[in-house]
C-alpha cells in the first residue's frame, strides 16, 4: 500500500535528484526543473546522492527517503565520485537501476558519451544546459512511461483482434493508439528498454568550446 504522499509525488510531479558540485550549476538546473514542473532535490556530490537515495552502506539498505526519485541528473566531472561512477552504482543496484539517469558535461567527448550510454544513461547533455534540453528529457521520461504502458495495451489489443478475426465479427479495425509524439513506427516487439530512442540516442552535438 503506497503512502499518500508518495502517490501524489510520483503521479502528479516528477521528482528529480540533481547532482552537481558547482553551486552555480545547481541553482540553474534547479530553476530549469522547477519551471518544467518538477519537484527538485539538489545535492553536491555522488556520495550525497547515494545517501539521499538510501544506498548509503553505512546506514543499511534503505535510509531516509520520503519521496520517490523519478529521475537523476548528474554532472560528469565531480571530485570524489564522478557522475559516471554514480551512474554505475545506480545501474548496478537492484533497488534503483530503473531510475533513468541523465549525464551533464561541459565536455563533448564522444568516448565519454558512448561509455555513459553503454552504462545505461538515458541521455548525455552538453552544458550549458538549456530549458529546451530539460523539456526534452522530461518528455522522453514521460513518453517512456507511456510507451511501456502502450506496448502492454498494444499487445493485448492485438490478441483481442486476432481472436475476433476468426469469427469475422465487425470489430472495428481502428488503429491502435500509440504514444502521441512517438517518432518510431510502433512495433509490438519493441520493449521500452531496448527502444532505439533510448539506447542509441545521440545527444545534440552543438558547437561548444
Amino acid at each position, binding site marked *: 500500500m503506497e503512502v499518500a504522499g508518495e502517490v501524489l509525488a510520483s503521479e502528479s510531479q516528477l521528482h528529480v535528484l540533481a547532482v552537481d558540485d*558547482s*553551486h*552555480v*550549476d545547481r*541553482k*540553474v538546473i534547479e*530553476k*530549469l526543473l522547477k*519551471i518544467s514542473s518538477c519537484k527538485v532535490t539538489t545535492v553536491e556530490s555522488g556520495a550525497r546522492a547515494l545517501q539521499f537515495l538510501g544506498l548509503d552502506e553505512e546506514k543499511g539498505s534503505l535510509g531516509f527517503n520520503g519521496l520517490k526519485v523519478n529521475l537523476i541528473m548528474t554532472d560528469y*566531472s565531480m*571530485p570524489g565520485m564522478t557522475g559516471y561512477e554514480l551512474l554505475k552504482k545506480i545501474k548496478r543496484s537492484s533497488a534503483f537501476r530503473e531510475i533513468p539517469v541523465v549525464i551533464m558535461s*561541459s565536455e563533448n567527448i564522444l568516448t565519454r558519451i558512448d561509455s555513459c550510454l553503454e552504462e545505461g544513461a538515458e541521455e548525455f547533455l552538453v*552544458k*550549458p*544546459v*538549456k*530549458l529546451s534540453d530539460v523539456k526534452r528529457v522530461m518528455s522522453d521520461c514521460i513518453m517512456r512511461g507511456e510507451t511501456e504502458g502502450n506496448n502492454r495495451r498494444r499487445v493485448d489489443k492485438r490478441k483481442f483482434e486476432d481472436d475476433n478475426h476468426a469469427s469475422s465479427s465487425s470489430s472495428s479495425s481502428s488503429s491502435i493508439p500509440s504514444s502521441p509524439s512517438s517518432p518510431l513506427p510502433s512495433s509490438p516487439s519493441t520493449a521500452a528498454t531496448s527502444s532505439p530512442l533510448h539506447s542509441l540516442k545521440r545527444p545534440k552535438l552543438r558547437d*561548444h*568550446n
Partner: protein
Amino acid sequence: MDFVNQLQRKFIDYSSSLHREGIVDDQFTQLRKLEDENSPHFVMEVASLFFEDCEKLINNMAIALEQKQGVDFKQIDECIHQLKGSSSSIGALRVKNACIAFRSFSDGQNREGCLRCLQQLSHEYSLLKNKLQTLFRLEKQIVAAGGSIPRVH
C-alpha cells in the same frame, strides 16, 4: 510611469551593450527568460554565486602560482575547469574565453604564462562584475519604482 519607462529603456540599452561587447552571451539571455514574477531576481542571485566562486578560484590560483617550491599545475587546471564551467553556465563569455586561453598555459606548465593569464582573467572578472552590478542596480530601481524588468530584446 514615465520614470519607469526611462529606467526600462536604460536597462534595455545597457543590457544590449553587454551583449555587443561580448561580456555576456546567449546563455545569459536564456537565464533571463527563466525569471518571472515569483523569481524576478534569479539572474542576480546566480551572478552573486558566480562572483563568490570566481573570487575563491582566482585567489586559489594566485596562491598556487606563488608557491616557490613548485606550482601545482593540476590544482590550477582544476580551478580553471571549474571556472570555465560556471562562466559558461551563466553566460560570462569573456571570462570563459580567458579560461580557455589559460588552460593552454597551464597544460604547458608555463608559470609565467599562467601569471599573465591570471591577470587577464582577473581583469575580465572585474569588468564583468562592475557591469553586471550596474545592470542589477537598474533592475532593482525598476522593481522599486513598481515596474517590471524588460525580458525581451
